[in-house]
């Protein structure tokens, strides 16, 4: 058992999770300015939101961790972005075309990440950015799809996500998306796993507190894919979901599953207004 699991187990076992009443430092007051652009890391919550103010996870990190995101050279995810740009320009598949051949400059996809997950009429469900990329690769390029957590996919989602950096998260919440968001909300509040915990117990009831040595954020998704020190690399949002579920000893859903897409949709709505930080840097 890893220590953090021990800690959660201890709190859960003594019924203290809901009232982890250790005085926590909360978010800090730092402003996130990347390459001269000020990002929104704090915003009034949308209507009918359980929180008054929502904060980016960046505000809960130490100065040293924060520093790696404010400079595009220091940010270790940027090597992946450069690799993504190579992929963007490389012809592949039966079409012998590159992404650039159809889309031009990658900044033509500015705003895309900010609207994810996005409704796909043909599929009859919302798709994550990874789904859209693989659809384009298979349908248009005639190439093999990438694995969700592959280096190629992470490089491409980081590259495309970066084009929306600084834009507020604005997922569609009306129409058929409403059902998916509701489904994600239900997952968010449903206790699962051997520790019998739900997302809200850490990220709504106890954000800002310390859970052992970890400073709990509100669990916002505006920085994904994110470079995590723990991973020594980039990882997808759905990988993060899996990690949380493993911590509470639940069997994670699959990456790209309906459950994770629904949760992503709900969290996108829950974090509406925060700036996209892709690729963010976290501990």
């Amino acid at each position, binding site marked *: 058992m*890893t*220590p*953090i699991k021990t800690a959660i187990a201890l709190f859960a076992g003594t019924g203290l999770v809901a009232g982890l009443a*250790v005085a926590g430092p909360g978010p800090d007051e730092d402003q996130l300015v990347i390459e001269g652009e000020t990002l929104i890391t704090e915003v009034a919550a949308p209507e009918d939101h359980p929180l008054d103010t929502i904060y980016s996870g960046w505000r809960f*990190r*130490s*100065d*040293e*961790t924060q*520093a*790696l995101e404010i400079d595009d050279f220091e940010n*270790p995810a940027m090597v992946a972005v450069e690799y993504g740009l190579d992929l963007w320009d490389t012809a592949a598949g039966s079409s012998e075309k590159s992404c650039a051949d159809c889309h031009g400059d990658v900044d033509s996809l500015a705003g895309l990440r900010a609207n994810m997950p996005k409704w796909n009429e043909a599929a009859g469900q919302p798709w994550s950015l990874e789904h859209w990329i693989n659809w384009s690769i298979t349908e248009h390029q005639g190439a093999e799809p990438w694995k969700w957590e592959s280096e190629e996919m992470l490089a491409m989602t980081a590259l495309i996500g970066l084009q929306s950096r600084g834009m507020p998260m604005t997922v569609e919440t009306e129409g058929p998306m409403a059902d998916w968001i509701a489904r994600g909300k239900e997952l968010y509040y449903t206790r699962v796993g051997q520790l019998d915990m739900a997302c809200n117990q*850490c990220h709504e009831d106890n954000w800002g507190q*310390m*859970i*052992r*040595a*970890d400073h709990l954020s509100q669990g916002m998704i505006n920085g994904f894919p994110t470079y*995590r*020190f*723990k991973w*020594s690399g980039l990882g997808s949002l759905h990988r*993060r979901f*899996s*990690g*949380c579920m*493993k*911590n509470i000893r639940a069997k994670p859903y699959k990456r790209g599953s309906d459950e994770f897409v629904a949760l992503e949709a709900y969290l996108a709505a829950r974090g509406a207004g925060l700036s996209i930080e892709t690729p963010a840097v*976290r*501990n």
Partner: protein
Amino acid sequence: MTMTRRDFTRLGLGAAAVAATGLGLAPRPAEAAGTVEEAIAAFTGGAETTEGGIDLGAPEIAENGNTVPIEVAAEGAAAIMLLASGNPSPGVATFRFGKLAAASAASTRIRLAQTQDIVAVAEMKDGSFRKVSRTVKVTIGGCGG
């Protein structure tokens, strides 16, 4: 909240290493040495070290031991060796500064297996040696797998 037990074996630091070769500035590697004392002795050739005279910048508390930013500067140093006393093997890196280096200073990011003292030893241009150490607390690397 204090931390008492850490299990960072997965981090995997240390092990044998490859001897540095090549240019005239080839550093004297610390990796052959098993302990901090041995590494320092290998670096100094057994000469005395004076405490102080090195700026060693590191976070008081590192949020994750996988990536800990370190800055080191010692005016008048030809080389600086960094050691991590609490890692399976203490060697981290040895920097050598040529004539065009504007300062005997460098930054890097290192792995720390647990809360420990990091040590910097500087070989001064006059042949003397200096040493400083500093404690870095390492917290378990956050939730999530």
